[in-house]
């Protein structure tokens, strides 16, 4: 079954429930017409909450960047050149350093 069909069953079921409610006497459930709005708002809240929680718990690894830098430095004396922002100078600097370090 296509995934879109699975996903669509949920809003369809909710819609059916809502239409059912709406067809009942209005005086029994006077705020039925507001339910779709509540649903959309709660969906938005859920999305924002998940993004917020994900952002707060976002796993970072600054120690890995340090370790990588150490590995580069130990193995290839690339400590300076790898992090240089200027691309032309970057290449030149690295080639120079590679030829002077104990590479391969």
């Amino acid at each position, binding site marked *: 079954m296509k995934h879109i069909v699975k996903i669509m069953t949920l809003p369809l079921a909710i819609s059916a429930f809502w239409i059912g409610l709406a067809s009942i006497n209005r005086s029994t459930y006077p705020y039925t017409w507001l339910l779709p709005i509540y649903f959309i708002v709660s969906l938005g809240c859920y999305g924002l909450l*998940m993004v917020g929680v994900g952002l707060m718990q976002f796993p970072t*690894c600054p120690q890995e960047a340090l370790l990588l830098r150490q590995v580069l430095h130990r193995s*290839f004396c690339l400590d300076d050149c790898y992090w240089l922002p200027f691309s032309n100078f970057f290449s030149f600097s690295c080639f120079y350093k590679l030829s002077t370090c104990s590479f*391969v």
Partner: protein
Amino acid sequence: MEKEKNKYSIIVPTYNEHINIALIIYLIFKHLQDVDFEIIVVDDGSPDGTQDVVKQLQQVYGEDRVLLRPRPKKLGLGTAYIHGLKHASGNFVVIMDADLSHHPKYLPSFIKKQLETGASIVTGTRYVKGGGVHGWNLMRKLTSRGANVLAQTFLWPGVSDLTGSFRLYKKSVLEDIISSVVSKGYVFQMEMIVRASRKGYHIEEVPITFVDRVYGSSKLGGSEIVEYLKGLAYLLVTT
């Protein structure tokens, strides 16, 4: 015993990576010492001498361990994997980036996880305990989280990191999936894992860290976000 029978083909697509490719090959050999593997470098005609560096490395490590399979020009990531796959002799294929954002020290954990679980795919995830990302600003993190929530809500993929590209596949599984994948760029990895999940392949995850280049090409602009949303909609209706 089983470990000895398996051979791992590590496909590394490159473009202008003459420094990083040397480092990555060195690190792979350092971290995979008792494993039968080959590294297949698929270079898209880099003008910076990447292929020359790989040829030098072939002399050091052997042409049967480091394979250079170049292509004349930039032809896209998906076709680079297909190209590498044609030359792979292992029964498992690892795909990873050459820019050192994927550290080869995690390769043993991929292999161990596969052996323990018999999974068809082991995918590296940055978003669980033990994993992580370095080098992203708040906007990049926000975009990533938003994209992830959207994908998890609408696609139910069963994995926590859809766009990561550090993965181990059974070769037959990769051949099966890659033939049906049509997306390019950012959405490619997501389509691969979603299609695999829909086909019912056993997917396992291992935590990895992702150290982005401090001065690199990890930009995520408006057009990438639009492409991502289009890819999401496409996967929603086609899988």
